[in-house]
């Protein structure tokens, strides 16, 4: 039987690190929007706004900025914008995203947790049910693909 590596997390240093990071990055902001973002319903089409001249470098896409379709993810719409530089994806921006509610306030932990760590490993077993956040990613993939199609 495989043994897992057991680690004890030292909370003081850990939270100090997190606090420093939070202070540096500031509050998380809402979805970034750009001038040509599309705010309508999921049936709207994608747009292409190629920027700096054509091609390409070694990648397979044409340089530029491309807006994907608005897809129906859960609890709302999802739309991405893709930037191609040197022929490949250099950035992905969310123009629309089904909102979560996350407050970035610092949390004060009392107890010291005991956590374990491992490398993830594929399992071949049959299961009854699968848990995972895959559904929003389908909308993400769809919106991304429509943007990449324009860049092809």
């Amino acid at each position: 039987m495989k043994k897992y590596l057991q680690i004890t997390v030292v909370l003081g240093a850990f939270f100090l690190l997190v606090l420093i990071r939070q202070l540096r990055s500031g509050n998380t902001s809402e979805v970034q929007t750009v001038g040509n973002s599309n705010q309508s319903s999921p049936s709207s089409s994608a747009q292409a706004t190629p920027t700096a001249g054509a091609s390409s470098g070694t990648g397979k896409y044409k340089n530029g900025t491309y807006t994907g379709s608005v897809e129906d993810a859960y609890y709302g719409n999802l739309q991405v914008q893709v930037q191609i530089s040197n022929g490949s994806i250099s950035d992905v921006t969310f123009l629309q995203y089904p909102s979560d509610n996350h407050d970035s306030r610092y949390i004060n932990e009392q107890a010291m947790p005991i956590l374990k760590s491992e490398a993830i490993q594929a399992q071949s077993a049959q299961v009854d049910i699968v848990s995972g956040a895959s559904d929003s990613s389908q909308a993400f993939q769809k919106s991304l693909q429509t943007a990449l199609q324009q860049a092809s």
Partner: protein
Amino acid sequence: MKKHADIMGMPVTIEIVDAGAKEEDITVVFDYFRVMDEKFSTYKHSSEVERINRGELRVEDASKELQEVLQQAEETNQASNGYFSVYHDGKLDPSGLVKGWAIWQGAKLLEKKGYRNFFVEIAGDIQVVGKGKNGLGWSIGIRNPFVSGEIVKVVRLADKGIATSGTYLRGSHIYNPKGDSSDQIVVSLTVLGPNVYEADRFATAAFAMGEKGIAFIESLRGFAGYMITKDKRAVFTDGFEKYVVKSD
């Protein structure tokens, strides 16, 4: 008997193992989810949530379901030291809590009809009741966020809830719609709890805390968590291992 539906823009699955399962009992739960979507959807103009946000409906005049959800939201806000909130820029959006709550209510509906062995799932969040098909518990795989179609962990649960929060992946890039992706360490966080409502609300709160979220889950009695980070490692709570089905 196993049935699927597409509700609230999400895949819904209900499977009942008990003998004599009736399709109309499953349909009742699907219809309940549709009604909940009409109340809570922030994308339906006529939903109670949107009417509240436009000032057309006061909370005290809203349905008892909405008032109950708001009460649960307040409790979750306290329990998570403010990391969980259903108010964003002054607008109400209870999405981070409604899914788990609705699944849990749906499961209670089936229990009232006499079913003792079944599961109710909406988009990867699941309430299992009873001991599954072989009497040992329901086996649930945790998705590999990096490889489509692959599972990285199997747990066996009876009478519990499981919920997973996650980010977006393409190849090795993690995209965080909240801003700077370079800081996004946590790719997936799965929480096991006494029911899916509890698992979902704390998965939502914990995911907002980043790497610290798994320590938050560890601090909660009766919960277990499995966090996957962008370097393809997992960090899990002390109480998680007893649910794991090992492959060797």
